[in-house]
């Protein structure tokens, strides 16, 4: 049976209404979704800032994930470049005082969207700071590199990132759970502490150096400063000390159940007990014994040998 003109007209109207509703729905959906899509499609964010500072500003950086590099320079300025993986991660820069030369700078990354996780949290930060700056860096995940600083202190903390500090003159502290730590030419007091990471101490000019790791290895390479105090300790990791034949130190090495290996010819110092060597401990003086070297392990091997 054929449709009458009224029925055809009604069907046509229904079709038009349906099409209009569809178009309306699409428009509303587009308006609602577009900003989110744009935000998600947006590339990495970038912050670049230069601040005039005093010669010894205090700089604090708190980062969730990414690489952090801080280098000292001769200018009384802090130059910050932070690149974030996602525009939903923001880097806040807080400088005090608000006018004149800045004395304190606080940089902190935070996520604007709680759904941002993993690599999207990444912010890679590079800072050029006055050589006299004091530094506190907390980088949850990722490496931290610090170079050429003479400020009062440099405190670096990371959960699993590698910490590397070169030519730092102030009180240097590095703490990590699983990351390796490397100090090159530290000249101030230096403390390295990690649970499972390795520690490398190269050409130290520090008079007060302490390093501790549980399962990682400690390598000390270089001379000792007269009257310096060096305390290296591991649980199961090995300790290796490689110093020049001209070095002068008093050695006190102890282990609970590890092995001791020493190729220096130790003597006893005047007015002190004679050199003592047992399976678990080794005391003695090499040359005039200017520096004090204390090495301990629970089950790790302790090895002291001259540089070839």
């Amino acid at each position, binding site marked *: 049976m054929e449709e009458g003109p009224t029925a055809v007209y009604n069907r046509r109207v229904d079709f038009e209404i349906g099409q209009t509703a569809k178009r309306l729905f699409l428009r509303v959906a587009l308006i609602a979704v577009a900003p989110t899509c744009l935000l998600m499609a947006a590339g990495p964010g970038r912050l670049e800032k230069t601040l005039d500072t005093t010669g010894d500003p205090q700089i604090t950086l708190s980062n969730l994930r990414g690489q952090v590099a801080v280098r000292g320079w001769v200018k009384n300025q802090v130059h910050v470049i932070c690149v974030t993986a996602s525009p939903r991660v923001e880097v806040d820069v807080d400088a005090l005082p608000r006018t004149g030369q800045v004395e304190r700078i606080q940089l902190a990354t935070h996520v604007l969207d709680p759904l941002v996780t*993993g690599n999207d949290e990444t912010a890679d930060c590079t800072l050029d700071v006055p050589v006299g700056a004091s530094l506190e860096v907390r980088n949850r*995940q990722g490496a931290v590199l610090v170079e050429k600083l003479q400020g009062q202190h440099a*405190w670096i903390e990371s959960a699993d990132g590698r910490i590397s500090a070169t030519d730092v003159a102030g009180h240097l502290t590095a703490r990590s759970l699983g990351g390796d730590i490397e100090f090159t030419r530290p000249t101030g007091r230096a403390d390295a502490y990690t649970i499972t990471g390795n520690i490398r101490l190269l050409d130290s000019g520090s008079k007060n150096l302490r390093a501790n790791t549980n399962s990682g290895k400690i390598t000390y390479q270089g001379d000792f400063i007269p009257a310096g105090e060096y305390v290296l300790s591991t649980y199961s990791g090995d300790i290796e000390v490689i110093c020049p034949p001209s070095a002068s130190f008093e050695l006190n090495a102890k282990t609970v159940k590890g092995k001791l290996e020493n190729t220096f010819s130790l003597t006893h110092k005047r007015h002190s007990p004679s050199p003592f060597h047992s399976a678990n401990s080794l005391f003695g003086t090499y040359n005039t014994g200017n520096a004090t070297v204390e090495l301990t392990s629970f089950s790790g091997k302790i090895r002291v040998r001259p540089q070839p």
Partner: protein
Amino acid sequence: MLEHDHKLSEAARALCRQFDLDLPAYLEGENKPTVLAHARECSYCSLVLADLEQIRFVSRHLPLEEPPVRVWANIRATLADEGILHEQVPAWHRWFNRLPLVSESVPVGALAGLAILALTLLNSPKGLESPGTLDALSGNQQVVTAGMMSADFDSNITRTLKEMEEAYVGRESSMEPTVKETYRRSLDCLDANIAECLKHCRRDPHDALARQYLSRAYQSKAEVLTSALEFDRP
């Protein structure tokens, strides 16, 4: 006309600069009538003053946040290095003096417990001769229970470490998988160290170095747990 405007703006800028200079003293309570006078005339400086007054008002009602313990440790170490600070008061006195600085009851308890533990481990090897005591001191969560604690040791030690572990386990699920993995690996490593030290101390309770390692492992565990509990704090 332009020159006049320029002079005016230069004069206004000078007043703003003077306002900036006087503002800190005014906010500290000093009598600086020029600050208020300028704020009445300059809308920008008026807003700055209003903002600062608002911040001052709100901050008066904020709870005091204690800085992390390491800040005090650093200050102390620096002062000692410079010869400004001389340790003269007895250690126990310093300890109790520091307690109010720490706001977290769990880390305080853990540190107090660890201090007792360290003293006990270092000074009384006989305390380790009882196998029950050694088991009770093990870092493994399954082993650390208040019920297993020997009378020789205050149950605060195990309780606080247990509380810390429980708090950590509660937070662990919300942690980033890689961060969680790092913390877990460190804690497992320390638990293994503790278990090995305890075994050794049971065999040779007079080994002072082993006792030092045991004490250090407990201290490290408390520090790792404290760090885990602090790390993701907003």
